[in-house]
């Protein structure tokens, strides 16, 4: 990429430039970026999503209600547990089934495993190389071997939970409407406890390490949206709340949020009908649920220099580390108080019904809505993944971020823009039902 001649540009009264990234790296799925500037002002930002669409909502029609969790898991190989959780909770909501402890606790445990695995993948393998100036974690490992090894081992601890309780790390097989296919005795979980005690220490060290990374000054006024539950940090249950007064049940989601189809994206853009762009994911959860974190996670956050509120998306790497610490702590809590359930699942009978659920995927709220006939066949399905909800906010961030860093070379500015996108840990595979980067400056 040619480095633009800054002095030559300043000689013109009208300058135009473009920042382009054809294929964004270290994100899940296929997308790019296009930014067009005129007189150092950003005139156009497009987060382009060319990941081919796969039409999940289309082929869910006619399938049995019991199949939705395994089918929708295939939307994303990074967060299949999230899809399984939203699907089974939506079905249980439709069919009037309530799954209580200890099955409810086991679902939290499974989600802890996915958060640890997914967050650690992003912290160490996808995001940290930006802060330290490496193209990837493998190059980073040449200078920071122990750090990368710690990350891999921490990631493995999350995967151990998912593969033991779920059967395998990717597309686990043990989740069903009403509970699980198979449940385990307390003794079976013992090897996990040792791994998690190590992981909790490693997660605490991860919080301390990420807190020392260099952060650009970039505070924005966002509307954060997340689940909120009075007694626990949210996974599967809670009301959808925001810092601007939104407080609704999952069944009211479509009354407040709208998806629109824009030409440059195979992922639908989501916005709040009344106020527009909003922000989901770890930073939104943290801002809306600080008091629900475990004492250890709260203390680590404050010690790392975070306040109860954080509005710098670059610091999401610290918040992901705090959440990873929380997930290790919470998984240990679940395991220590665990008693084997009497039966692996609550029986479920089909009926004509409509069901809704929102759960907290690693990247933010994941909404599922199903309509079933009296045989339990799916008539309609609607799925809104976290990344499609963040698309507008990512574009807004870039619009404000680029003018601050316009003095950088094309190569540096492009990399900074990529990093700004990776703040959101976008999952394009999820959103396409969703990324490529062009920054244009002539």
């Amino acid at each position, binding site marked *: 990429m040619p480095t633009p001649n800054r002095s030559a540009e300043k000689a013109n009264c009208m300058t135009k430039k473009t920042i382009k990234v054809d294929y964004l790296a270290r*994100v899940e799925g296929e997308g790019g970026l296009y930014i067009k500037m005129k007189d150092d002002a950003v005139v156009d930002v497009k987060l382009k999503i060319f990941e081919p669409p796969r039409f999940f909502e289309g082929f869910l029609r006619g399938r049995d209600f019991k199949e939705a969790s395994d089918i929708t898991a295939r939307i*994303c190989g990074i967060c299949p547990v999230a899809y399984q959780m939203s699907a089974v909770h939506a079905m249980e909501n439709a069919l009037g089934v309530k799954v209580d402890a200890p099955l409810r606790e086991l679902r939290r445990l499974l989600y802890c495993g996915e958060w640890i695995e997914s967050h650690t993948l992003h912290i160490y*393998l996808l995001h940290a190389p930006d802060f330290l100036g490496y193209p990837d974690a493998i190059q980073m490992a040449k200078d920071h071997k122990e750090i990368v090894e710690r990350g891999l081992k921490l990631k493995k601890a999350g995967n151990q939970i998912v593969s033991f309780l779920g*059967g*395998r790390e990717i597309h686990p097989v043990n989740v069903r409407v009403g509970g699980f296919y198979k449940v385990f005795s307390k003794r079976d979980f013992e090897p996990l406890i040792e791994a998690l005690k190590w992981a909790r220490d490693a997660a605490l060290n991860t919080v301390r390490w990420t807190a020392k990374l260099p952060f650009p000054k970039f505070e924005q006024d966002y509307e954060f949206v997340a689940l909120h539950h009075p007694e626990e940090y949210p996974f599967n249950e809670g009301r959808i709340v925001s810092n601007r007064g939104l407080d609704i049940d999952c069944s009211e989601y479509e009354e407040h949020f709208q998806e629109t189809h824009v030409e440059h994206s195979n992922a639908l853009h989501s916005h709040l009908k009344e106020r527009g762009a909003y922000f989901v994911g770890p930073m939104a959860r943290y801002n809306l649920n600080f008091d629900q974190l475990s004492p250890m996670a709260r203390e680590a956050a404050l010690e790392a220099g975070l306040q109860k509120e954080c509005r710098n998306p670059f610091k999401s790497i610290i918040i992901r580390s705090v959440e990873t610490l929380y997930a290790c702590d919470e998984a240990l809590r679940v395991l220590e108080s665990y008693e084997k359930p009497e039966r692996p699942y609550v029986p479920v009978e089909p009926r004509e019904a409509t069901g809704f659920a929102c759960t907290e995927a690693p990247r933010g709220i994941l909404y599922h809505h199903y309509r079933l006939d009296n045989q339990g066949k799916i008539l309609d399905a609607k799925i809104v993944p976290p990344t499609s909800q963040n698309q507008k906010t990512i574009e807004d961030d870039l619009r404000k971020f680029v003018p601050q860093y316009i003095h950088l070379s094309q190569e540096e500015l492009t990399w900074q823009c990529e990093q700004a996108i990776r703040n959101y840990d976008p999952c394009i595979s999820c959103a396409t039902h969703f990324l490529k980067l062009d920054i244009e400056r002539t």
Partner: protein
Amino acid sequence: MDGKSKPKVAVWKFASCDGCQLSLLDCEDQLLAVSREIEIAHFPEASRAVVKGPYDLSLVEGSITTPHDAERIHKIRRSSKFLVSIGACATAGGIQALRNFKDVNEFVSIVYATPDYIDTLQKSTPIADHIKVDFELRGCPIDKMQLIEVISAFINGRKPNIPAHSTCIECKRRGTVCVMVAQGKMCMGPVTHAGCGALCPTYDRGCYGCFGPQETTNTDSLSSQLKKLGADNDEIVRVFRGFNAYAEPFRRESELHDKKNH
């Protein structure tokens, strides 16, 4: 591959969930060791550095669903000495091949408000329908240890040691009691390719065929058994129309029962 430089490995993505390429990053214990033996030359999910081809080994994830991708796969083949397709999308068209049984335009309009923006092919097809593939690694998702075996085999110039028998045999080897015979659960194990270690029966459920059809299948006999367990035609169609719906033996069997439905 010459002895001086490390073999260059590339990872490519088409329509998929990213899960199969994630399997490589899920090799937490082996990743750094593997990266000492090979040069990861193109792997956008993990690195922004791109080394130009040609590549010694290309791993291809995902199915072909757009006119642009149908072109792109030929370029990748031309720059690859060996090419291995990984996962159910790349080897059978994936779950998105369910569109192949219907009019795709109907699906486009269900999901997208402005269908004109969407550029898609009528069918989702496996990589081998478009180019010559040197090996197909099955699974939805693939097994990560099998992936390491395949990479190791190709960079060392030998045949991958990947058994082609059925999941049923894996179950017997593990000593798992048959869930179909003993518990009357519907199970795809008798016709499904090995590789997962017979996971589902170990978790008290029937196999749902995520590794696709084994080498020679008797799908007809399985359908008869499913009927005895109470499945109707509609259910049999759904059983075969999963993550490997467009793999020939499964496609044929589902179409047979779909006709009986009408």
